Every structure is written in C-alpha cells, then in structure tokens.
C-alpha cells in the first residue's frame, strides 16, 4: 500500500455516524441477547429498542449529508439509469447502504413495540400486554434484527479494511473491533440509560456491568490485535497527532477506567458510578472511531 495524497475526507460526519450506528447496533444486539435468554420484556431491552431506531435515523441523515451529491443518495439503492436495484454483496459500502435502510425498518418495529410496552399508545391488538418482544415471534424478530445489527456494527469497519488505504486496508480485524466496540458502547449507553432512569437496585445494572467488563476486556484485546496486525506502515499512521491521543484515550478512558469502575467501583450499586462508567465507555468508543477514521487521513 502506498502513502496517500487523495483523502476520502471522511471526517466528523462519518466518525460520528459510525459511533452512533455502533451504539444503536450494540444496544439492539444486547436486546436480542436478552430476548434469547428470555428477558425480551426487560427494561434494558426496551431502553435498547428506544434508542436504536432514532440513532439510526440520525445516521442515515449524516451519511446522506456527507455525500458529495446528497440528492443522489438513492443511487446506492436504485440504479439511476436502469431503475433496477443496486446491490453489490462484495462492496461493504453498497451492503452498508442497504443495512442503513433495512436495519432501521426492524428497529422501527421494535421501537414502536417498546413505546407500546410503555403504554404510550396501542395499535389495535398490539398493546402493552401483547408486545412483540417477549413473544415467540419476538425471538425471530430479534434474531433477524440482531443479525442486521451485527452487520451494521461490523460493516463500517469492514468497509475501511476493504480499501487500499494505509492503516485501514492493512488489517482484517477492523470489522471485529468495530462490532465489539459497538456492543461495548451499546452496553455503555444502556448503563447510562438505566442509571438515569434511576433503577439503582435493579439487578439488570449488575448484569450490564458484568457484561460490560467482559466486552471491554475483549475490546482491549482486539485493539492490541488490530495494532499488531497493522504492520509497521499501518501503525505509523496512528502514531501521530490527535489519532494517537485518541487511541490512548480510547484504551484508558473507554477501557481501563470503566473496567476498574465496574469491577471494583460497585457500579452496580451506585447509579452515579454506573452512569460514569457508561459515559466513559461511550467516550472511549467515540475516540476509537475518531482515531481509526482520522488517523490514516491526518497527513494531508
């Protein structure tokens, strides 16, 4: 891979989008796991469903605005000259475009479901007592939606590695790293959400904390693996400027610190601690997205 003169100029809009999409996907995946272990109606799952869809809407908007020609966003879905569907399995960007369209559709239903579960309104027979989630159909929904969420969480990392850009194209672990940070930030958002809702004594917080500890550890391992697989040229692009600060920040703020808080800080017991841990994980996840997107482009 040769050093780059032409940058993609994937800047704030993109790393913010990647971050938010990660949170949405991570939260949704968490909800799906909860569904699978039989807790589809838990408060945590509902919180997850409440945040996933709106975040994805914002993401769709950010991605559109980021285009050089936003009015042509639909060219990614429909071939502008033939009106046939435009889909390339082997292009993560193409795949991502579809994911950003289809996943929110699933998330939207879950979102409505969560609102209904909260008794805000009902639609015919669809009401708080008979929500989708928590039902057998909900499991199927969660599995499909969860897989889509997985894809949403992964594709942006895979998109970056499916390039010839030094720093991005050097490692095949980027997708894994992205999806795991998605889960971590999803969990972080839920921790924060639950803490804000004041469910101090709720055992879910303890579960979230335990899950977070494991996922954060896994994320730290993947950061190391990612850096190790980059090769010298790839590493170099991250070892300078704000990207270096952000990476270190991500490991410290988003990794070690929440780990300590969650493991030894009895976050489960104190909402402020939980909230802080959640915020830290989110900040870490954001910094990581920032570092990965900006690092390779910062020489220009």
């Amino acid at each position, binding site marked *: *891979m*040769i050093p*780059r*003169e*032409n*940058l*993609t*100029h*994937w800047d704030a809009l993109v790393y913010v989008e990647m971050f938010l999409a990660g949170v949405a996907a991570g939260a949704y*995946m968490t909800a799906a796991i*909860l569904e699978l272990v039989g*807790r589809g109606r*838990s*408060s945590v799952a*509902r919180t997850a469903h409440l945040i996933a869809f709106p975040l994805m809407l914002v993401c769709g908007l950010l991605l559109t605005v980021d*285009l*050089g*020609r936003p009015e*042509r*966003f639909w*060219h*990614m879905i429909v071939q*502008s*000259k033939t009106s046939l569907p*435009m889909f*390339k399995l*082997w*292009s993560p*960007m*193409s795949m*991502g*475009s579809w994911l950003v369209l289809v996943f929110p559709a699933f998330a939207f239903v879950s979102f409505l479901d969560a609102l209904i*579960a909260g008794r805000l309104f009902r639609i015919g027979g669809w009401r708080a007592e008979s929500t989708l989630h928590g039902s057998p159909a909900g499991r199927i929904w969660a599995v499909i939606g969860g897989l889509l969420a*997985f894809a949403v*969480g*992964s594709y942006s*990392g*895979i998109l970056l590695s*499916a*390039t*010839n850009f030094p720093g991005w*194209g050097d490692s*095949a672990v*980027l*997708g*894994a790293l992205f*999806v*795991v940070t998605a*889960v*971590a930030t999803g*969990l972080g958002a839920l921790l924060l959400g639950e803490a804000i809702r004041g469910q101090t004594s709720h*055992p*879910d917080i303890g*579960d979230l904390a*335990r*899950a977070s500890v*494991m*996922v954060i550890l*896994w994320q730290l391992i*993947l950061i190391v693996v990612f850096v190790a697989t980059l090769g010298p040229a790839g590493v170099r692009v991250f070892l300078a400027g704000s990207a270096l600060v952000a990476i270190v920040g991500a490991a410290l703020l988003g990794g070690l610190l929440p780990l300590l808080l969650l493991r030894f800080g009895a976050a489960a017991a104190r909402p402020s601690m939980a909230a802080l841990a959640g915020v830290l994980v989110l900040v870490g996840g954001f910094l990581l997205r920032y570092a990965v997107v900006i690092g390779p482009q910062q020489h220009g």
Partner: protein
Amino acid sequence: MAAAMGFYTDTTVCIGCKACEVACKEWNQLPATNGGANTLSGNSYDNTRELNGTHWRHVKFVEQFSPDRKQAQWLMMSDVCKHCVQAGCLEVCPTGAIIRTEFDTVVIQSDVCNGCRDCIAACPFDVIGINEATGTAQKCTLCYDRLQNGLTPACAQACPTASIQFGPIQELRQRADGRVSTLKAQGTQAYVYGDEKMLGGLNSFYLLVDRPEVYGLPPDPQLPSRSLGLSWLLSAGGAVVAGLAGALAFRKQRMDGAAEATTVGEGSER
C-alpha cells in the same frame, strides 16, 4: 466488446515535458490549481504534486544522485489511472457509477456518482479524487469520448516522444516486451509493471527501470475485497464472543435473581 485498449508508457523516453498533463486538462476542461496561482513544491520540477479529481495525468520526477554525482539519474514518469482489469474502484462503487467500457477501460460516470468517496480509498494507486466543481469522484476516462469517436486520447496525442503509446493492449504488450529485451541488450535493466499477473493486468502499464516504490507505485497492488471474507468471519467471531459474554452475564443474573423475582421481576415493568 472491441479489443481491449490502453496505454503502454515507456518511462525511458519520457522527457517530463508535461504536454500530456496540459493536453488532458485542455481536452477535459479541468481547472488549474488555484486558477494557476499555484506554489512551488520544492520537489524537483513537480508542482502539480499528485493525481486527483482535477489532475488526471501527473508527471513524476525522481532525482537520484550520489554526493559525487557518479550516480546521476533523473527519472520521469507520467502517471495516470491504470484501468485495471480487476479494478478496486469499480468493485466498491455502491452506485454503479464506475463502469467497464467496451474498450475494457474503467470510467466514472459523472452523472451517476454521488460522491461517497469509497473508490478513493479502494484504488491501490491513489488515482481518484473529488472534483470540487462537480462534487463527484473523477479520474482519467481514457478519453472515452475521444475513443468513441475514433480519436487517440489527448495525452498520447500530445506526447512528443511517444512515451505514452495508445493502442490495443495485446499489441502494446508485445511492443513493451520487445523494448524490454532491447534495453536489456543495451545494458539497462527494465521491466514491465502491470502485466497480466497484476490485478488481471493493468490496461495502462509501464516500462520501468527501478523498483516500483521509487516511482510511488505499490509493488503488489491488491483488490479491496482481498480479505472481505476473512473480515466478516473475524467480525462474526468477535460478535459471537461478545454475545456469549452477554448471554453469560444475563443468564447468571437470571439464576442469581430468581429469588428476587417476586419482589421486582415482572412487577418492575409496569
């Protein structure tokens, strides 16, 4: 499809005159840097610096001198899109803006591209950039419009020394091989960069006399999809581990919290 057409660029006869750059800009009406009021780069005679959305041709200058000038070489090479048979840009383009033409060249359709910029990162040769005027990704079209009208590309037409040669790829490859043998016989180490083994063949290929890196070319260019499968697999693996962790955490609570189920449990979810 007509015969595959392309460029054979013999860098040993390039005199760095930049006629190709200017001819390209003129034909394609591309703007000059800052309206012409550019700055001196300090890097040899190269002041246009790179290939991008408004420089579709770019002549590189490499000065290789030892302190005593016993070794003295000034390499010049007119760089352009390689019109790869397996083209990374085309592979990733999510709008279908990038097409393979009947001449086996790779062209970005300006009216289709929406400026997502994935192709910029995908090209192994750092060829594509955004043209601010159009908001779309642009690069050499191999003068698609001229080819359709039976004309030679503007750059090749302008090249005074026939460093840039245009024609059917098969013919050009034979010519290049002949030239390599001649040069070898004259004692110059030369080779073809971009044969069929490279990305299925570069339809704009080069005769070089030094390592590719010296000219800023990747020694082993790859398709962006080279590790797509592995990436997804690893991603799935990563997610599975995370998912299992979650499942473990949440399951554990379920058993631990069985006792509390009555007090909180469903009740909390009013």
